[in-house]
């Protein structure tokens, strides 16, 4: 299993904490899946934050705070600084949104924020596209993990650009890669892991399922199956049939 800024995770599943029907269901989803990381956010305190923090600590998993909803490097940097103090971790899932319909990252502001945060000692998990040039720049800035989107956040479409994701994997063999966002089904998670990705990060597909705990477990199993398959070196696909049963020695019966 690949390490993330020196931390080896015992599951390739990273799970969000939003949109569950209840805190109990959220906790159950983490228990049944064995997810190793929980993403969290910061919002204006209106009374619920303290209870939520107690719940998250009880999960006993690593915390990955995000900068969700930020649209500029300045906002994202300030949010990251507040998150580091509050959650006592240098990890930050850096989201800088550039497009309101697709929630696509703003590559320019993302890079600007990544440079500042890496220089300040943060361990940045950038939510990015599969763009190779941007990925290069993020790595040059000091990012040691990349998190390309599978599809727009909350869409459940799966891997929209398998070619792009495969290229990214090939270009960055030594950088841990996480498909973040857009996964809808466990098969999407298996797909990402079969491409050689190191983890998947999702939220809506589990939280909005009819049975979130069962779906969380399904995603965990699929991600693990995909990881094993990748390590097992899959066969090459081919266009023509090739008999698997030996032809030689077949009885002459016609």
């Amino acid at each position, binding site marked *: 299993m690949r390490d993330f800024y020196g931390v080896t995770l015992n599951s390739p599943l990273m799970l969000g904490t*939003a949109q569950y029907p209840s805190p109990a269901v959220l906790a159950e989803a983490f228990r049944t899946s064995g997810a190793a990381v929980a993403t*969290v956010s910061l919002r204006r*305190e209106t009374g619920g934050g*303290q209870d939520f923090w107690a719940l998250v600590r009880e999960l006993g998993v690593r915390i990955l705070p995000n900068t969700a909803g930020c649209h500029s490097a*300045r906002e994202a940097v300030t949010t990251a600084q507040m998150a580091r103090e509050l959650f006592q971790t240098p990890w930050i899932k850096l989201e800088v949104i550039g497009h309101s319909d697709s929630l696509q990252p703003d590559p320019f502001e993302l890079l600007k924020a990544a440079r500042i945060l890496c220089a300040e000692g943060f361990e940045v998990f950038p939510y990015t596209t599969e763009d190779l040039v941007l990925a290069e720049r993020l790595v040059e800035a000091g990012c040691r993990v990349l998190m390309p989107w599978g599809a727009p956040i909350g869409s459940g479409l799966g891997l929209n650009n398998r070619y792009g994701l495969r290229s990214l994997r090939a270009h960055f063999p030594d950088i841990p890669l996480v498909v973040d966002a857009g996964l809808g089904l466990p098969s999407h998670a298996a797909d990402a892991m079969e491409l050689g990705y190191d983890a998947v990060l999702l939220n809506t597909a589990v939280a909005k399922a009819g049975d979130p705990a069962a779906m969380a477990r399904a995603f965990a199993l699929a991600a693990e199956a995909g990881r094993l398959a990748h390590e097992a070196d899959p066969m090459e696909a081919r266009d023509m049939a090739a008999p698997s049963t030996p032809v030689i020695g077949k009885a002459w019966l016609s």
Partner: protein
Amino acid sequence: MRIEVNGVEREVQDARLDAILNELGFAEAKVATAVNGDFVPLTARAERQLQPGDRLEVVAPMQGG
């Protein structure tokens, strides 16, 4: 003086950030703060003086994806 706290105008007695948080009921809460868009660490709250019209953000852990 009047300042903006999480987007709402509020009247506060003190100018020091730690005292303001006390006054607003955040003394024991796990929160982080920013003034006018800049992070103010916990350790700097006692020295940070606010001016009328300043924008104070008080944030807490919340669900996220």
